[in-house]
């Protein structure tokens, strides 16, 4: 079957198996910035935004989200023009191996869209589905708080 998505603002059409999950479809079509790992929805490495809301793409059926807007980490900024969250994660040292980072940043991005002044508890709650096994979480929380500061200073999207 064919599905259409608007990925990072660009309309794309893919041929899929009706039982496939979104993660596999996106990676097969070049979106290797989305990482895959558990296929159970427990690690969050595969997080993407679907209509602005963070989801584990390994548990979302690709056919179910036909027609939706999907944002990957490349959709919020890049090397030349990083989003304040991307810059903050690097500056604060919240990145080590980097495998969980795209998903974690997207969860943080969705949080800041809803709540531009989160408490530490809000940040921890928003990132609770994104597991990190090397950097740890203290730097990630600090990075989100630093991104809030950068956004307030006007270095926003």
């Amino acid at each position, binding site marked *: 079957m064919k599905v259409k998505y608007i990925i990072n603002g660009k309309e794309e059409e893919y041929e899929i198996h009706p039982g496939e999950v979104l993660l596999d479809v996106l990676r097969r079509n070049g979106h290797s910035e989305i990482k895959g790992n558990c296929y159970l929805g427990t690690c969050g490495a595969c997080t993407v935004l679907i209509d602005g809301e963070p989801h584990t793409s390994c*548990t*979302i059926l690709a056919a179910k989200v036909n027609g939706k807007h999907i944002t990957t980490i490349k959709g919020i900024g890049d090397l030349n023009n990083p989003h304040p969250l991307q810059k903050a994660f690097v500056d604060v040292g919240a990145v080590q191996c980097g495998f969980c980072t795209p998903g974690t940043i997207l969860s943080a991005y969705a949080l800041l869209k809803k709540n531009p002044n989160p408490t530490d508890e809000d940040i921890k709650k928003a990132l609770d589905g994104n597991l990190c096994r090397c950097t740890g979480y203290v730097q990630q929380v600090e990075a989100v708080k630093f991104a809030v500061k950068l956004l307030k200073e006007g270095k926003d999207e």
Partner: protein
Amino acid sequence: MLKLKGIEEVYYPQTIKETVDILRSHGDLAEVVGGGLDISVFPNPRIKFLIFLDNLNLSYVKDSSEGIKIGAMTTITNLIESELIKDYMGGSMHSILPEIATELLRNQITIGGSLGKREPYSDIVTLLYGLNGKIVLSDGEWDEIVSINDFYKENFKRLLKERIIKEVIIEKYTKDYFFSMKRYVRNATDIALFNMAILLKTEGNEIISARVVAGSRPKPAYLMQEAGEFLKGKELSEDLAEEFGKFVEEHIEVGTDTRTTEEYRKNLSHVYAKRILLEAMEAAK
């Protein structure tokens, strides 16, 4: 990783009637998809047809004379964000919701999907069962309202081959009711090793009626009728809380699985039963 290899076709019906017609035409080979978490994590290889409910406008939380109506496609996140749920039962329902699963999964798990699957570890089933929720089943032509208790007494999976869960209704309880739910996890994102919900009606300190539901035991949530009977007519007190804890520990039907033992679940049931009664006592002051 293609887990659902057998899927041949998917449907996007626009009405409940159309959904049920597709369901009936494919029988056991078709499955209705709520959030889709369960089917993607625990795929059923027999299923060939998936029916997505996303176009049926079943995502809502609204007030009505019958109670608060929660559409089947409402996610846990939708519930958390609902002003009606924030205020419901003094916030006791709202407070438990952010503890369930993770933000990412709360965006996917639907109320209808949780009730229709009745997974043993579901906190949503224990929550709504504890609140004595009513399920509205619909075939698109007529609706039938059944209590969650009656729904689970039936062969509910068979019922869901002929109808779908349209919404759940929770009563707007008056101030003489008290509700609390507890769940035990080893870490913040774990699934519950045990959960318990209690709804009490009191007059002053006297318990007029009580509803005790336990889940993740590891069997699915069930109504512990004898615990409700035990409390009826008794006065809230610290002694009663301890007695009740002992009673629940002695009578609860729990078992052992790979995650924990029967003995541990019994101990948890004692602690939670006692703790909830102490909370109710505080609330009654």
